Every structure is written in structure tokens, then in C-alpha cells.
């Protein structure tokens, strides 16, 4: 029984009403698509940090869960060269042997799932994580900018009693038809005639893959309980529903289907979109439900999944709805600034690039990336970051290193108004962790003034800044969802 053991969703905090984009650019056409909100990744987020969020949601209370492979999927990895998967695995403190980035195509998420399944089937991985995240780089002022959104999803793939959805069939199509593309030297995505692309690309390839999937499995379309399906936007989704064998299932789900829900609350999440929908479906699926997952882009990937009784035993955690429903409004100008669309206005002022050192980052990767604290076996004191001695008892050896659970309580905090920062005000919070250490770090996602001494908070993996053209990642305090006065 090989299949999906667990799943997680992540949607950024900031939401931009699509109406605001329409107003800014005087968009008079396709107003029916300018509804709902677009999820906007913070200035301190990218596809690596969002993938980490989704993976940690997917692992839930299991933490490491025997994972030994990680596949990262995105059309927008932060690095032109350097493995994002390796960074994600390190931040999640996963002892993986294999990591790979699947990128360059919209179907990267479902294609990475196929690679992970094959690795587990072949025995080269016991448990594999698929982490898909995307921030589609459409040109500001386009309809595609408005309907897309930033977000991530992750799946844990494995074999055993805890598989919650077994893979009962899969179809993969590779096709050179040009729909959306980006030249390596271009910043924004290119598109051409939308109806052409949908006709010969999206509708044709999705339907072909789904027909083949159902035929191979000998399954009637009517027996499909849920569908996780890539869709460029709500209009194309509705058209496909009318022509697809999956039409009845899509019609049954209506606006509560995972695609409409995500499109309204976040947008088309690109390579992460079908997996994010699957995460929503699996959360409420019942044993024996048949689910169809379809990814699209340069071909298509289609999967047939059957939900197992193990779904009832999935370790509890906060629902995916947390990520959909805890949010804050972002002005369009700030959203453009976060993505550096405002010419000559960098995130940090010129001359404010932090000093950095690659040997230092290497030495401290255990605490900075993997969030490991140092425990003195002589007296039990716990330290973060690591140090050469125990300041409590003086021991200079006998230290253990342990991953911190991400939660702690606010010992004290302050709100910085004077430092240059892309999203003022930023808070600095001193967090006492239950393991017994104390971490002082920046806040993210929300106004730090809602915090209070003594309240519980969570650490989130974020970008601090870029120096030497290298993103510097570590842990911040997430204000989102924690405050007394959260709006």
C-alpha cells in the first residue's frame, strides 16, 4: 500500500482584494474574475520558506517521521542555481539522502509526486516529501496577476498502515504545446491567445489524461467523490467542468470544491495548486472515497486515489482553514513593493546590506536553519544559539543537540519604528521555549502590537534579508493568528 501518508497546506497572511488590482489598472474586461482575494507572500517569504511551512504542516506532530527524500516543486525557486530542496530539508531538520528540485513547468507539483512515488516503489526512499510552492511571476496589471496567488502544499509519501490515500492509478502526458512560458532572461511570464492555449492545451490534455486514467482503472466518472484539478482561473475551470468526464463531481462540489475555495481565498497557486486542493480534499475525505488529482503544464499528470480508514487516525493539528482564514489586508502598492516591482526602491535602503560570512553560516547551520538547541547534559541548561561552554554550570563538553518544537511564550517584546524595514513596524520578541531556552528574534505577518507578555507564539521559517546575493533564512515569530486584537 503505497500512497499519501500526510499532507499540509500553506497560504500567506497578506491578502489583496482583486478589485484593488482592477481599479489600479482600470481593468474593464473579465470583471467576473476580479472577485475574492489574492494571497501575497510577505517580503520575507519565497517558495523555499512557503515550502517549509507546508512541509511542517504535513509532518504535523510527527516531526521527522522517517523521511529520507525530499522533492521540491516550483516554477519560481529562489535560486537559479542551488538546490531549494536541500534548504527546505535542512530547515525541517529532515535527514534526507535524496533531494531534488523539479522546476521549469507548471506541472512540477504533480510531476514531483510521480517521482516521489516511484522512489518509494523502487525502494530508494522509505518516506518522501513532496513540497510544492509557487509565486507566479505575471506582469503587474494583467488578469493573470490578479487571478494567481502565492502558496504551498506538501505531501508525505510512503508505504504502510498509516497511508491515508492509496494511489490506484496514474497517467502522465508530456506535450510541447505552448501555453505559458518564460524565457530564462525574462522576468515575467509570457502568454498568447488564451482560447487557443485552453483549447489545444488545458482542455485537451486534462481531458485526455483523465479519460485515460478512468479507463485504465475501470472506474466510472460518477463514482469519483472529489477532484483536485489545476485550473488557470475560475472561467477556464467552469468551462472544463462542462466538457470533462469529471463534470458531475465538480458540479456536486460547486463553490465548496477545493479549486473555487482556493481561487477565491488565495488564487491559482501554480505548481502547488493541484496539491493544495488535494490537501483540502483529504482533510474531510471519508474512507473509500475515490479522488482524482490532475496537474497541467507541458502535458498533464493524473492520479486516482482511494482514501483509507487510516485517515481517521491522522494525528490532529490545526485545520487547513487556519491558513485560509487568518489573514490581513495588504495595499496593492505594498504588494508590488514586496515583489520589487517598484523600480529603484529596494527592500532595504542602499548601504544597509548586512555583513555576512559563509563560514559563519556553515558553522551555525544547526541553529540557524535546523532550529537545534544545545542541551548541557551536566546541568540540563538549554542554549540557542550554540556556545562553547555552559554558562550555567561551566561544562565545556557533554552537549546534546535537539530540534526545538516551534512554540514558546512571549517573555517580553518591543516594537521597532526606527530601523529600515520593508514592513514596519517589526517587533522583536523574546520567546521562552518549553525546552528551556530563550530566543530573541523578529516578528512576521501581522502587527506586533497585538502581542502580550505570557502569550503563546510560534516560530516561522523566514527570509531575513539577502546579502552577497544569497537569501539568509532563519526563524521569526509569527504574529498571525496569535494576537488579542487580530483583525
Amino acid at each position, binding site marked *: 500500500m503505497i500512497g499519501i501518508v500526510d499532507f499540509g497546506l500553506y497560504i500567506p497572511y497578506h491578502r489583496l482584494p482583486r478589485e484593488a488590482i482592477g481599479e489600479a489598472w482600470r481593468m474593464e474586461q473579465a470583471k467576473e474574475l476580479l472577485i475574492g482575494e489574492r494571497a501575497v507572500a510577505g517580503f520575507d517569504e519565497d517558495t523555499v520558506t512557503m515550502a517549509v511551512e507546508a512541509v511542517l504542516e504535513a509532518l504535523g506532530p510527527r516531526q521527522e517521521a522517517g523521511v529520507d527524500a525530499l522533492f521540491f516543486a516550483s516554477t519560481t525557486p529562489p535560486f537559479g542555481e542551488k538546490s531549494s530542496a536541500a534548504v527546505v530539508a535542512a530547515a525541517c531538520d529532515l535527514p534526507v539522502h535524496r533531494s531534488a528540485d523539479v522546476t521549469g513547468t507548471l506541472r512540477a507539483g504533480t510531476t514531483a509526486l510521480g517521482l516521489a512515488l516511484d522512489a518509494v516503489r523502487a525502494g530508494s526512499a522509505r518516506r518522501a516529501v513532496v513540497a510544492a510552492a509557487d509565486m507566479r511571476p505575471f506582469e503587474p496589471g494583467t488578469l493573470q496577476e490578479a487571478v494567481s496567488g502565492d502558496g504551498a502544499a506538501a505531501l508525505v509519501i510512503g508505504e504502510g498502515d498509516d497511508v491515508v490515500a492509496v494511489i490506484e492509478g496514474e497517467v502522465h502526458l508530456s506535450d510541447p504545446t505552448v501555453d505559458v512560458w518564460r524565457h530564462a532572461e525574462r522576468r515575467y511570464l509570457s502568454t498568447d491567445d488564451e482560447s487557443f492555449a485552453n483549447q489545444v492545451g488545458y482542455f485537451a490534455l486534462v481531458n485526455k489524461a483523465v479519460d485515460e486514467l478512468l479507463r485504465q482503472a475501470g472506474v466510472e466518472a460518477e463514482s469519483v467523490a472529489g477532484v483536485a484539478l489545476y485550473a488557470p482561473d475560475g472561467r477556464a475551470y467552469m468551462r472544463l467542468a462542462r466538457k470533462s468526464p469529471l463534470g458531475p463531481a465538480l458540479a456536486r462540489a460547486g463553490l465548496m470544491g477545493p479549486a473555487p475555495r482556493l481561487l477565491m481565498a488565495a488564487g491559482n497557486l501554480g505548481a502547488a495548486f493541484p496539491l493544495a486542493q488535494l490537501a483540502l480534499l483529504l482533510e474531510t475525505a471519508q474512507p473509500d472515497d475515490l479522488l482524482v488529482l490532475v496537474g497541467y503544464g507541458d502535458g498533464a499528470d493524473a492520479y486516482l486515489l482511494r482514501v483509507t480508514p487510516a485517515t481517521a487516525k491522522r494525528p490532529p493539528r490545526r485545520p487547513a482553514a487556519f491558513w485560509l482564514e487568518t489573514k490581513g489586508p495588504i495595499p496593492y502598492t505594498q504588494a508590488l513593493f514586496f515583489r520589487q516591482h517598484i523600480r529603484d526602491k529596494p527592500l*532595504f*535602503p542602499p*548601504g*544597509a*546590506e*548586512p*555583513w*555576512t*560570512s559563509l563560514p*559563519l*553560516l556553515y558553522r*551555525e547551520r544547526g541553529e*540557524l536553519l535546523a532550529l537545534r538547541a544545545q542541551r548541557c547534559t551536566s546541568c540540563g*541548561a538549554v*542554549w540557542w*544559539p550554540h*556556545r562553547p561552554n555552559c*554558562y*550555567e554550570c561551566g561544562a565545556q563538553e557533554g552537549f546534546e543537540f535537539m530540534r526545538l518544537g516551534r512554540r514558546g511564550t512571549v*517573555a*517580553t*517584546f*518591543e*516594537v*521597532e*519604528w*526606527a*530601523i*529600515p*524595514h520593508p514592513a514596519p*513596524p*517589526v517587533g*522583536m520578541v*523574546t520567546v*521562552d521555549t518549553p525546552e*528551556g*531556552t*530563550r530566543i*530573541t*528574534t*523578529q516578528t512576521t505577518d501581522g502587527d506586533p*502590537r497585538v502581542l502580550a*507578555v*505570557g502569550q503563546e507564539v510560534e516560530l516561522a521559517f523566514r527570509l*531575513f*534579508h539577502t*546579502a552577497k546575493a544569497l537569501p*539568509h533564512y*532563519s526563524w521569526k515569530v509569527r504574529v498571525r493568528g496569535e494576537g488579542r486584537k487580530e483583525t
Partner: protein
Amino acid sequence: MGTEALRDKVAIIGMGCMRFGALQDKSFAEQGLEAVNEALADAGIEKERIEAAWLGTFDPTVGGSFPGYAGDFVADILGMPGLPVTRVTNYCATGMDALRNAAIAVAAGLYDVVLVLGNEKMRDVPSRDSLIRQVMVTGHPIVQKGLTAPGLFALMARRHMEEYGTTREDLALVAVKNHYNGNRHPKAMFHKEITVEDVLSAPMISEPLGLYDCTPTSDGAAAAILCRADLAPQLTDEYVLIEAIELATVSGGRYGRRQESLIGFESTQIAARRAYAAAGITDPVSAIDVAEVHDCFTITEILNYEDLGFVPKGEGATFIREGRSSLEGDLPVNPSGGLKCFGHPIGASGVRMTYIIYEQLLGRAGLTQVSVERNGRGLVHNLGGPGSVCVVGLYHLP
């Protein structure tokens, strides 16, 4: 050897202090020379009597100045080739630690007459560019990135408020008192009295600390001439003696879970304990006539009242509320207006604070003069870093 080894072996026979401020028309070298010349004139000696010097400067590059990186700068401005000069840097306690090292050398009998110069140039760049932006640029690339100097003390202010009910109004009283005093001191940067309302309505810097809760960044220099105590009467009529000068350092990492590290400074407590022991002081409020303490932020002065033993931990706010630290109080604190009104050119501050106590003990403090009849003793407290370095000095009349 104990803490008493230094007691009364070293005299301060001359001091100089320029008017602090944003000194755009003076270079780092000109500042230093002005302070040294004033100190030499005060002592009534020629520069050739100086046998060695200690330069306290924290970061000459804050102001973009290259001189000051090393001791050679002092030999240069004095035109004294061969002068042995040591540069000292120990966070914001740099000035007092330079003075302490100079005193140790004199007490040890190596030199008869030495110079201490505290000098810092911070306003060659905008104030936001100096210490605040430095936080984003220098230091660890990630750990505590974004935690500014005001931020560090704001963390403690929040916790002190939470545990002891200290209010923003209490903090404002410190700024109001120090501005009242500073308005009466000719060398202060700010000559302006303010109200509690002014403080509360000022823009936030590091919430809960606003603009008037913070020392400004400024340029400044102060100098002291130290000599063997037994030689002092031959050189000058008026001088003070160093009774004790104690340095304490603790971990600067805010390590561990010790709650007291969020509401006070262990370095101050240890340095004060040692200094009081050296001088035989058991009740500091009655044994000290005047104190110049490190009020980099309003909360710091309240924490200092507690850590220096003026009041028990948690009762710092009462000391300001009851007016006990005002010019007419039973222990006037920061009669000069403190860092709040002088600003805090880092390496200069400790020497400048010593200058304030020196003039108080010698009765030269003009409108800010308080009575030193009771003991003829003053205290200087200079705190550095994340509260991890502290020097406490006690001075008295011979």
C-alpha cells in the same frame, strides 16, 4: 590583592569636557584636542608631564573617521612621538574603562601623570544611520538582527512594566527631570525643559520607548589628568581622589532563562557591590551625595536605581516619583541632565560623567550644584552593551 588596592592612590587633578552636540564644524581630532587642552589647563600642567595615555573610543567608523582606531591618534594630536597610548573599547562603558585602566597603571606605580581621553564622533552621519542602521549592517547576520540599542532596553521596559507596574509616565518623569537639569548645564547638548505630555506624545522609536525616552546620538570628547595621589597637592590645589573603580562583565547573550536578566543588570549589581565594599559603603543613599548614572534610556535610569541599591528591585519608579533623584532630592541623580541631555558619544560618556562628579565635588557645578557636604562623595555608573559591561566609580574629596 583586593578591590582596596586602588583606594585613594590616584587623584584626578584636571578635567576637560566640551559642549556636546552635533559638532559638524569639528573633526574627531579637533574634539579630542579641545578636551585635552581644557584638562591640561585645569590641572595647570604642561602636556610634557603626560607619561602615558588611554584613549576610549568605541567605533570611529560610526562617523566615518579613521583616526581613533588606535592609540597613535593621541600621540599625533599632542605632537608627542613615543607616547605610550592604549585604545580601550568596552561597549558603552568604554570611557570609564579607559579611566580605570589608566588609574590601575598609576596605582601600580608605572607612571606619575597620565591622560585619559574619551572621544566619539557619531554625527558625521545622520543619527538614524549611526547606531540604528548599524544594527542592520553590522553584527551577526541573523541572530537578534533588528534589535537596536533602544530595542534592547524596550524589552526590559516592557517586562519591568509587566512585573512591577512601572508606567510610561514613570519613564517620562526621568526625561523631564533630566531635561530640567540639562537646561541648567552649560555643556549639555539640549537646553530645553519638557513635560510628561511631551514625552508621551513623541514619536515611538522602540515601543514602549519614544523619542524622549532615548539619548540622542551626539559628538563629544572629555579628558582627565590622573596622577599619583601623593603628588597631587604639589601640582594643584583642587582635586578629587578615586576611591574605587570597578568593572564587571557578564554574558552579553541574554542567555538562559533567568528572569532577572530581563529586569535588571547583573553587571551593575556586581560592579556596585565591589565598589561599595572597597569604600566601606553599606547604605549607598546615605553614603553618596550625588550620582551620574548611565541613562541611555529612561528605563535604564530606573533600573539603575535598583541595581545600584538605591531602592529594592522593582521599586525604581518610586525613586523618581518621590523626587528623590532630583536636584533637591536626598540623592540627586544626573544633575547634568545625563545622557538624555548630553547625548551619548559612546567613548566620551564615561569620562564626561566623571567630569560632572568632579565639578560637583569641587563645587564648580553652577546652577546644577547639589550639596556634597554630607560625605563629599559622588558615584559614576557607566553601562555597556546589552547590559553586560559595567563600571562603577566612587570619587571623593581628599
